[in-house]
């Protein structure tokens, strides 16, 4: 069975500090991978997608970057956090328009 694991579960970080969020997919080879962001009380916005290792496309500019160093791994990062980065980050994979979401990382920037 396919599983999707996100880490960490939650983070409290200072403005200006770096951030790295991770996502690992097990049981599925070469999935399409996505990062979504949800502001508190808001809808979900697609940030990045990746169809293959080493290739990441940006959908929304939020001063964040993403990388796919391995087929089953998707990383979201920034060198300098902003207050506006606070929210809920979800990783997802898809096959033929069927999406599976991770349990998310809750980020508070103070």
């Amino acid at each position: 069975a396919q599983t999707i694991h996100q880490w960490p579960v939650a983070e409290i970080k200072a403005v200006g500090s770096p951030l790295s969020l991770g996502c690992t997919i097990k049981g599925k080879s070469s999935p399409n991978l996505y990062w979504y962001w949800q502001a508190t009380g808001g809808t979900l916005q697609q940030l990045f997608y990746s169809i293959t290792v080493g290739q990441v496309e940006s959908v929304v500019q939020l001063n964040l970057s993403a990388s796919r160093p391995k087929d089953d791994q998707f990383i979201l990062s920034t060198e300098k956090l902003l207050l506006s980065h606070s929210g809920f980050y979800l990783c997802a994979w898809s096959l033929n328009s069927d999406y599976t979401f991770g349990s998310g990382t809750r980020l508070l920037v103070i």
Partner: protein
Amino acid sequence: AQSVTQPDARVTVSEGASLQLRCKYSYSATPYLFWYVQYPRQGLQLLLKYYSGDPVVQGVNSFEAEFSKSNSSFHLQKASVHWSDSAVYFCALSPLSGSFNKLTFGAGTRLAVCP
């Protein structure tokens, strides 16, 4: 361009009452349509999806949704809600084809079920 509109930000119903959460979409062709539920501090869970065929689709936990091409709608329904149904519900749309499938979400409807 594709978009999803959920006109009701909040809905409050009594336990045991029927429920309808509205969803309207905009897309040039017939898309894939989804309803997801988000419980507090959790990720998204798929309730049901529509690809083609019978416009009424059954989902988990006795939810169902009806696709209407003429109205560009995909409303979610439940005959009798339980307090545990309190959550945020998202309608979403994805194009039928393409190696990159952009899943577009509505703003969500927060459902509160009162005892």
